[in-house]
């Protein structure tokens, strides 16, 4: 198996683990019977505790598989140690499940959106792991990191590539499936998009489209009678256009997410229709009034700061001036002139208002 095929296997394994962990997470949610008596509560807590161990093994396996480094592995260990220590503090079983397993902190989700954006090199997984408090958040972090990662996508075995009319390649990697073939061939070359990378797996596809919403990512899950499309748009460009997108469900300053589905026959039409509606930088509408008033406010603020700092008055400058003598003034003038000539000699055709002036102090 060559390197690209190995990379592809890692990605497929990730999605399998991702799915399994989500299923485990859901299965660990407390039911009424778990709170029946002391014995059932103890049993449930044990199940949660064992779940923690399992999750830790999975996350470590993902991190090792993608070569994320010792620091990430240590951060994972630290996270789980913290979770285990907090475990017995939670007391009530609902609380334990919510806080250690299922909670999703809005501000962390926004942070993740800001950090893991397609076709960019920033994104600090280590920092994000340090901020996660629940398994759900950790899973979301890894998922975003991997699915918005251009380097991971482009490390897969290439199946085919074609150029669009704007000079950008549309490339497909991974496994050759019916869905992959259909989407690749139907991808319109006259649609204005930048670099596009598609990774195809047996029942899933990942798509990263540059220049639409900066770097639109779409996760396509093949269903029996069609497909489900989950998308993330990191840059809004035009809020009005975003609000009209099919299946839009959340818009914040860090981007927009949504989900829609299509039947077998509608897959290409709905997918490319959707991509074509995602706004680009050219769709940005500048609110000049808002921008001008912001600039005015900033200038006013700056002026206030400067006025606070002003301690010398004009008459004090005059006072100093009257104390000086001609020889000192001439010396400084000559130094300035020499310096100016030196600067001028580095550039051609430069004029300044110091040219052709008589020396001060000459009668």
């Amino acid at each position, binding site marked *: 198996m060559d390197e690209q095929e190995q990379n592809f296997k890692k990605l497929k394994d990730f999605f399998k683990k991702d799915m399994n962990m989500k299923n485990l997470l859901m299965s660990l949610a407390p039911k009424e019977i778990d709170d029946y008596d002391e014995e059932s509560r103890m049993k449930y807590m044990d199940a949660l505790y064992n779940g923690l161990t399992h999750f830790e093994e999975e996350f470590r396996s993902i991190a090792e598989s993608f070569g994320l480094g010792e620091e990430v592995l240590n951060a994972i260990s630290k996270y789980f140690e913290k979770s285990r220590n907090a475990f017995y503090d939670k007391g009530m079983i609902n609380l334990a499940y919510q806080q250690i397993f299922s909670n999703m902190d809005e501000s962390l989700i926004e942070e993740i959106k800001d950090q893991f954006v397609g076709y960019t090199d920033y994104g600090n997984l280590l920092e994000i792991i340090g901020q996660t408090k629940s398994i759900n958040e950790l899973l979301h972090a890894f998922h975003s990191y991997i699915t918005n990662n251009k380097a991971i996508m482009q490390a897969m075995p290439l199946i085919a590539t074609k150029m669009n009319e704007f000079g950008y390649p549309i490339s497909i990697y991974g496994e050759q499936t019916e869905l992959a073939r259909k989407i690749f061939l139907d991808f319109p070359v006259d649609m204005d998009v930048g670099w596009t990378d598609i990774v195809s797996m047996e029942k899933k596809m990942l798509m990263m489209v540059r220049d639409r919403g900066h770097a639109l990512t779409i996760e396509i899950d093949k269903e029996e009678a069609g497909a489900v499309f989950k998308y993330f748009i990191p840059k809004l460009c035009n809020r009005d256009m975003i609000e009209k997108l099919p299946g839009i469900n959340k818009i914040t300053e860090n981007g927009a997410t949504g989900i829609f589905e299509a039947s077998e026959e509608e897959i290409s039409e709905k997918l490319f229709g959707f991509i074509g509606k995602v706004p680009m930088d050219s769709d940005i509408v500048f609110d000049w009034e808002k921008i001008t008033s912001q600039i005015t406010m900033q200038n006013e603020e700056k002026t206030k700061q400067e006025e606070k700092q002003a301690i010398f008055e004009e008459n004090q*400058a005059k006072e100093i001036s009257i104390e000086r003598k001609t020889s000192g003034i001439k010396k400084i003038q000559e130094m300035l002139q020499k*310096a100016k000539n030196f600067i001028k000699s580095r550039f051609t055709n430069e004029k300044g208002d110091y040219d052709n002036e008589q020396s*001060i102090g000459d009668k």
Partner: protein
Amino acid sequence: MNNQLEISNIAAETMQVLRYFDRNFRSKISSDFLKLLEELSEGSNIVVKIDKNKELKDQNISEGCKDLIAIIYYRFIATEDEKREIIKAWNNNEMSYQNMLREKYNVDNIFKDKTDKNTDKQKIENSLVEIKKDSLIEKIKRFLNKIFRSK
């Protein structure tokens, strides 16, 4: 000090001082001139400590900086009447300064002092010398010594 470094330091010092003038004052200075000072400042690491409780003339700034502020005031702020007043002041100050230097380093004055001192000393010494009258034998001795020495 190397001239280039000196003017860089003066420019940097002046730019920092100018920040403590209000916008109205600074807006009168031509942007080309400020640009020149900005460019010259780049070669300097000088830091000016401004005492907010003191007036400009009492600040710990260099003579070069004061001269440059004077140039700025003269060129961009002063009225025509003020310019005449300033030029006159500069020339008067220069004259006073030159007079002071002349007094201090005048050759005549230097030696004058020394001569007076020596004359006084001599007078004192003379006043202490006893005047002896020579005896006849002493006079003859002196005469014979003279003759033998000249040979």
